[in-house]
């Protein structure tokens, strides 16, 4: 996988993960143009795109678009399932996830993504195991934080 983007129906980027080294300028250009292209597509259209020299797989969940660029020989359908599994993970973690969860806790969304995909490849596909790993790390966080004011940090935990 080359990259994954999450953006809203309004075209606001919510999450970006790049697995290929690109300059910031290129990233911005790709993001801008791809978001436009995907948003212009109608709901019943194909989830796969041949865009520039890339293969794009995207899917819309409510107001959020999940969009992946994959290598030429990669399997489109399984990429769609990668997106789906990621949404399932977010949903399980946040408890029926909504866009706001991802906006306000985007670093959590990144942590989950990193536990699920590593270097652009699916590393752990079991929902249970991914969340177990995340929870362990979270637990560490709580232990370390407990002596401090919980209130102040509540938004970030």
């Amino acid at each position, binding site marked *: 996988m080359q990259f994954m983007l999450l953006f809203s129906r309004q075209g606001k980027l919510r999450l970006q993960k790049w697995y290929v080294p690109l300059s910031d300028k290129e990233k911005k250009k790709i993001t801008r143009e791809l978001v436009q292209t995907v948003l212009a597509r109608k709901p019943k259209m*194909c989830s796969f795109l041949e865009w520039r020299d890339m293969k794009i797989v995207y899917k819309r969940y409510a107001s959020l678009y999940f969009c992946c660029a994959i290598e030429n020989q990669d399997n489109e359908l399984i990429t769609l399932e990668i997106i789906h599994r990621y949404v399932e993970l977010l949903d399980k973690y946040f408890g*029926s996830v909504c866009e706001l969860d991802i906006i306000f806790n985007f670093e959590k969304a990144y942590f989950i993504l990193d536990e699920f995909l590593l270097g652009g490849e699916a590393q752990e596909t079991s929902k249970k195991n991914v969340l177990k790993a995340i929870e362990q790390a979270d637990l560490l966080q709580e232990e370390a934080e407990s002596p401090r004011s919980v209130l102040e940090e509540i938004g970030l935990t």
Partner: protein
Amino acid sequence: MSDVVEKTLTALPSLLSLDSQPGSTKLSSTSKLGTLIRGITELTSKHEEEKLIQRELVSIKEQVSSPNTSMRQMKELMVRAIYCEMLGYEASFSYIHAIKLAQQGTALEKRVGYLAVSLFLNESHELLLLLVNTVLKDLQSTNLIEVCMALTVVSQMFPKDMIPAILPLVEEKLNHPKEIIRRKAVLALYKFYLIAPNQVQHIHNKFRKALCDKDPGVMTASLHIYLQMIEENPEGYKDLAASFVTILKQVVGGKLPMDFNYHSVPAPWLQIQLLRILSLLGKNDPSTSEIMYEVLDESLRRAEINHNITYAILYECVKCIYTIDPKSDLLEKAAKCIGNFVLSPKINLKYLGLKALTYVVQQDPKLALQHQMTIIECLDHPDLIIKRETLEILFRITNAQNVTVIVDKMLEFLRINKDDYTTIDLVGKVAELAEKYAPDNEWFIETMSTVFSVGGDLMQPDIPNSFLKLLSEGFDSVEEDRKLRLFAVDSYVSLLQGEPGKLPQRFLQVISWVLGEYSFLREELEAATVLRLLAKLLDMKNTSSETKSWVLMAMTKLCERGAGVSVAQEVSETYSSSLDTVLRQRAQELQHLSRHSELRARVLPRDAGLEPLEVDSSLSFLDGFVSEALAAGAAPYKPPHQRQEELAQAKALSLEPYGLSLPISMSSCSIADRQSPTLLSISSGLSGESPDLSHKGGSSTLKLDGVKRLWGREGYLAQREPVEESARVEVPSPLRSPSQQGEADSSHSQTPIPTPEPEQEKQQLASSLFVGLSSQSSVCLMGKSEPTPQRFRRKAKSPGSSSSASEKTSNSLVSTPSTVDNLMCNNLLDSNITSELVVSSLEQTSQLSQGLAAANGTCDAELTDSDVKGSSPSLCGDNAVAAADPAPHEDPCKDLLLTSHLPAELSGLSHSEITPLCSNQSLDLSASHVQKEDSLVLVVFIYNSSDSDIQQILLELDSEEIEVSCVCDSAVQEASSHSVAVCQYSLTVKTPSVHVEVVGTVSYQFPAGTPQSLQFSYKLPLTCFIRPLTVSTEEYGTMWLDFSHDTKQNLTLISDGQEPLAATLNVLKKKLQLHVVEIIGMEGIVACRLLQDQPCLMHCRLNAGTLAVWLRSPVPALPDCLMYHCQRALQEH
């Protein structure tokens, strides 16, 4: 689930505005990030947002650089900085602080620090070097989560040059007890392999270890590396094919833990990865493909559930089936599968179906015929992506008969398409088809005009190049050439009379060249008219200077007489003061040549596009100039290749293409001039002689050379040649109108489908699209030679070669034998390998028997002086020593005596020393074990040392580890005085342990006395039960993966010989009766079995002066026990 998301998300706007809503508590209204986000959502304009973010960034910057900021606050600041960067605002000042956070923070702060680093930097960023120490520290941490974090960041980005610094630590993690660490370590190595394959070359065996990991997740991760390596070198990993097949079989069969299921489909990611690997391994390799057929069939069968994930697997399966060596019944099933995709109402599946069809249509054009109605429907699909893919199919089935319809469809698409990449690609394809299959002049010129206007300045420069070359070189018929050129002139003149301002620059260049070269063909057309039209182009403000120079060049060719000259003079005056030197040069030429018509006629002879010019290649007319310059102190000339060499030495830049092409083209100098004004005429003409090399030059200007052209050959002109006649039998004359062809061909090429009225139109379209497919199919199917017209179209063209039809035939003729060659090669290779194997195994056997003979020899010498015992391989003295507790040696005579009592069927076999078990006044018990090939026999000798006969002797044996069964015919009843009775027992191991012990009781009775009994025990080493296991490397690989119990240890290496590995394995082989399967470099694989047939495999590797031994078996304690014996055997040596 998605419904839930849907619901929650529809409530979003209200949530954003009202803080009191439930759920808003977790939205952290109090946090600073929350405030920022809230602030942004309230803004209405982009400008305001920018102001807000800039303010935010300033405040973040202040805080991060303040020394009073705690790591905890830093963490919060980083999150905000990430957010700002995501919105597109640069926060580069925070990068260094992100690294600091990862370095100094507690675990939780570290986590954010690492995240920020991975989001901010990419692997070439110099700051990343500062992370190396942090990663090193965390890799050594005892905290698993810190190790995880370090591995995660490493597998995303790491500076290439620093890999060696952390590689040992990552390697070490492959042995970590936690599977999550092992898995991440494998993925980190995968990343290293991708960015710096050389750095990890030496640890390929570790990859293999990861592949054999007992955790399927780690194994899955290792497949990424294998896929990559196999892609690069499929030949190197053929031996693994069987293992991959076995794994896939197990996965498909549902043998993996439930955790790996995804929507009740077993490990789909793993399955797809394996299928991809298999297709790489099976490609062009019948014998490797052979072993896959079964599992592929199984996969197709198992994927039944109607879920995306099963379709994903099916799709990969189909791809694999069509990639590997074909098998008809699988192909049939795959084709059916593609059909299901194509016909699916789900658009995603339909798209993939079309894609698969594109993939296979050249092998199996009939499949396209089957689905022609779907293809027609997809051609009008509202989704351009679907449409595009359909055109791709059509492109691959284009032939001389359907070319007009298909090209029409493609041009139609081009007009509505907005994506540049698609345009470039499709324009190239149209041009290719037009050149190959054009039915007539008009169509060709018109199509190319559309290509030029639609493709504009985006298209590949070789399209206009080859078009002009085609036009200038002409074909075999002068008359046809003239007509084609004439038509081009007419068509371009009318274009210029219209609105030339709308035409792209490239097209204008083509037009100028054609008019300059050929407008004389239209006699009624005055040169002055053309000159005026061209001059108009010069005045347009968006004409580029490159185009202008083309126009001036064309004008130079045209300004012959009268009115034309004055136009030329006017223009040349304007441009002779141009700032652009090229334009000024052209204008000067124009000025001079328009004045001297004689000179002009000599410099630019009419219609001499192709006539070779004699050129003084030594440039002798410049000698005077050169000597003058040298005398004035100029540096002597160095030929380009020499300069290149010097350059290369200085800069180590490889500029090979030039070095190659120039010297060759210099040697053969004949010049075709008047072609491209922006190119030095010499070079264009020169490289024309070496078409193959000329591609390598720059492509910024039009090059009219080296481009192979097929149009005309296969099209309407070539058929005038007699050679073409044979081809014409197959391809109905393209001169007929397409509709006629359609009728004619549909009669024999298509399966008639009953048609409802409104379908009529589509049917017609179908018949024009799929015409000629079936006749072609036989040709295509035969060779499976992947006809890629593009490639051979552009490649080596021998001037004056005959028709392309004959080329095509020869191509297919050549390609078929080449596959045959390949097959034969493969077979030859195979047989080589087998014979090698045979030889080596023979060698091994002879070695083995020699070794054993030697061992037996010593054994004999110890036991007896002269008696030569059994020749069949078995027991060695060492075993016997290890076997029984060493007892004081009886005198040899007694041994000899007992030996003679060995049952006849065992006497030929070697046996262990005869060990006394127990004795009293009347009885003397001894025992020995005899190793038979498939069993171990314990022989107990009962010597009656008393003077009376003993009756009712009963021997009972028992053991915890061993199953003892009496060999029936040896039940002893009695032993007469001073004689020996013999009992035989067959032993099998129940639970392996280092030594096994048999305890026994013998009860007996003298005729006149009371029953008496004696107890004894007999100890044997496990090694008596070990036999060599003869397997091939391939089988070994399969078995290895199946076995779950393993142990690893480093053993001492025996290094008396030159090759320590071979010497050590030899010792083990001799002492423990192992079978050495193969020694590959630093590694050796060895196999044995525990009687009856419990396999145990051994993998040894030389590692820093020791032998790293890894034992695997399905039997729990076996590897440990065997390891003990290996260790002892080597110590005793």
